[in-house]
């Protein structure tokens, strides 16, 4: 069935079916650009280079977090440690700023290493000790938050000029670096999804037993997904520090909810086996853009949460609805 679709190497090229379109990143990309049109109409000044750059910079941390969460969700797990790792990475960068591009790379390496470490703990406990992912990652999230508080008690610290100014600027003054990073991740995912690791990730999410029977090391696939997730969370904390130019031990808290909302909005199925990183990136970008649009049309910022929560529920319902409709068509 669905697993054949993904693993068959030579599919005859025909027009994509309704289901394939609905399950791809296409709907969320369409929604994203539609929202830009609305935003541009409501507030024409939004289309200036400055505000586009600012929006990209605002969105990138959430996009990275959502990308990381997607790896775990695709194989059928959940990872709540996202909030903890982002906070931890954020404060680590803010108390140990290193100047220059090399310093920036060193900082990035540090936080990615932290993310990998937390991911390894999560992966070990979930994949090998077989403890429920939500509960285990809840515990590691709390521990990371504690570690972040130990490093920095209150918001403070500062980041290197390289991160604060150069990373958040634009190439040649017209191409926002944040946008380039996002495109790079999409390209990475396009390659990754057809590698063995990528395929086994989705196979495990679709049917764990079938995957195991066809020779996939399920535990190792799970473990790896947490590693990727941790690395992306670390990078998200890094970009959050670059964007805010400061460290905040609670900076990761809003990401817990928003990263899941972004993944849901992108159409990736909770429970695994369906979706992708590109869709989540657009889901995250759409969420951030939506905040701006809501503000532009005059919704009080107090009520942004109502819209975000409602969209999260609707996105999950819509995704389930599409699946049900397309399944029905197929069985007919």
């Amino acid at each position, binding site marked *: 069935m669905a697993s054949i679709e993904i693993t068959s190497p030579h599919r005859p090229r025909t027009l994509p079916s309704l289901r394939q379109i609905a399950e791809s990143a296409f709907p969320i990309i369409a929604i994203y650009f539609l929202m830009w049109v609305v935003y541009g109409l409501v507030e024409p000044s939004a289309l200036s280079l400055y505000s586009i750059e600012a929006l990209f910079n605002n969105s990138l941390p959430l996009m990275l977090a959502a990308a990381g969460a997607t790896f775990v969700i695709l194989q059928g797990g959940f990872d709540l440690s996202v909030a903890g790792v982002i906070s931890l990475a954020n404060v680590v960068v803010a108390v140990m700023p290193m100047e220059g591009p090399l310093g920036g790379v060193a900082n990035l390496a540090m936080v990615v290493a932290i993310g990998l470490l937390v991911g390894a703990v999560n992966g070990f406990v979930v994949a090998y000790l077989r403890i429920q992912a939500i509960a285990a990652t809840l515990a590691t999230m709390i521990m990371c938050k*504690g570690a972040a508080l130990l490093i920095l*008690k209150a918001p403070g610290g500062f980041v290197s000029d390289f991160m604060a100014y150069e990373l958040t600027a634009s190439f040649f003054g017209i191409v926002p670096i944040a946008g380039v990073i996002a495109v790079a991740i999409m390209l990475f995912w396009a390659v990754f999804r057809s590698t063995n690791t990528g395929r086994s990730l989705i196979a495990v999410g679709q049917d764990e037993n079938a995957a195991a029977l066809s020779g996939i090391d399920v535990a190792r696939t799970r473990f790896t997904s947490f590693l990727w997730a941790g690395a992306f969370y670390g990078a998200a904390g890094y970009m959050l520090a670059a964007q805010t130019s400061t460290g905040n031990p609670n900076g990761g808290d809003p990401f817990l909810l928003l990263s899941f909302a972004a993944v849901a909005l992108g159409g990736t199925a909770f429970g695994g086996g369906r979706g992708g990183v590109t869709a989540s990136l657009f889901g995250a970008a759409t969420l951030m853009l939506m905040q701006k649009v809501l503000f532009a049309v005059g919704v009080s910022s107090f009520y942004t949460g109502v819209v975000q929560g409602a969209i999260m529920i609707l996105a999950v319902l819509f995704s389930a609805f599409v699946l049900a409709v397309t399944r029905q068509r197929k069985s007919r």
Partner: protein
Amino acid sequence: MMQENEIMSDATMDIEDKRSSARISGEFVTVVMIFGLTIAMILASRAISPAFGSWSQAETILYLGSFLVFCAFGQGLVILVRGLDLSIASVITLGGVLTASLMNGSNEGLFYLVPAILGACVLVGTISGIGVAYFRIPPFIMTMAVGLIVYSLCLGFTQGTPRGYPAPFLSGFMQAKFLSIPAPIYLLLVFVIIGTVLQSYSAFGRKLNAVGNNPLAAYIAGLPSGLLIVSAYAVSALCAGFTGMMLAGYANGATLRMGDSYLLPSIAAVVVGGSSILGGQGNFVGTVGGALLLTTLATILTALGFEQGWKTIMEGGVILIALIALRDESFAFLREQFRKRG
């Protein structure tokens, strides 16, 4: 009599020695261990300060822990039916904010405001439950989203700063003493008894256990699974709203973040108390033990002068250790060891 009993029990012990290993239930061991650990910690804390290890410290722990026990009961029911309630923090805030702003420092209308406020909370829980049970939305997504919506509504309703005071009756009750024991401790006792009966001995509780244990079997047996799941979420929201009301009475006002420090501990208390996070197993007495253990730990760590960071790390560590220790494999190992000795 005493002697006879002792001899009797000795004799039965001898006879049943080999079987005793097989009879150790994981739940029972956990409950005994947790209460033992809590009491040992309170007694050992005498070494830190003479004010500790006393009855008055135990009283404080019971008082402060009661808020966690209230909301952990609801969390436990939701976890029992294979769910998770992440809206608890927001519903506590909702209960607190409504209590402060609607009561507005007067006892007037107390008799209809209390049911109205709790009713609003139950409505929130019912919505979460319907989303989970009938629309098949993953529990933690549904409750997280509903929590976000409720919090956002509280924010808008109060315009960022909650005002007002709870009824004097409520704050009076929180400070009242009866036979030199704080009144809320009696409330805690009554709550624990009702909660235990409801979860483990009532028809409702047994049905919830059945749904959590094996939803398919429960469905085939003709249980209204959907309705039962919705009711678990509704009870959870009711308990959270009640916690918010009591907290508002305790602090004589409400804040928008008053629920935050109860969400994660409520899950921790349930898990530490020996309930399976996978659902279908657990009892409220264990949860109460878990809540008191966490409260005791927090009190002692504060007294020892640990930073907030260390306290948070240990809180997470306790959950992780409990999860690893309470796996079925661990109990199988424990039983094996007992058997070898027997």
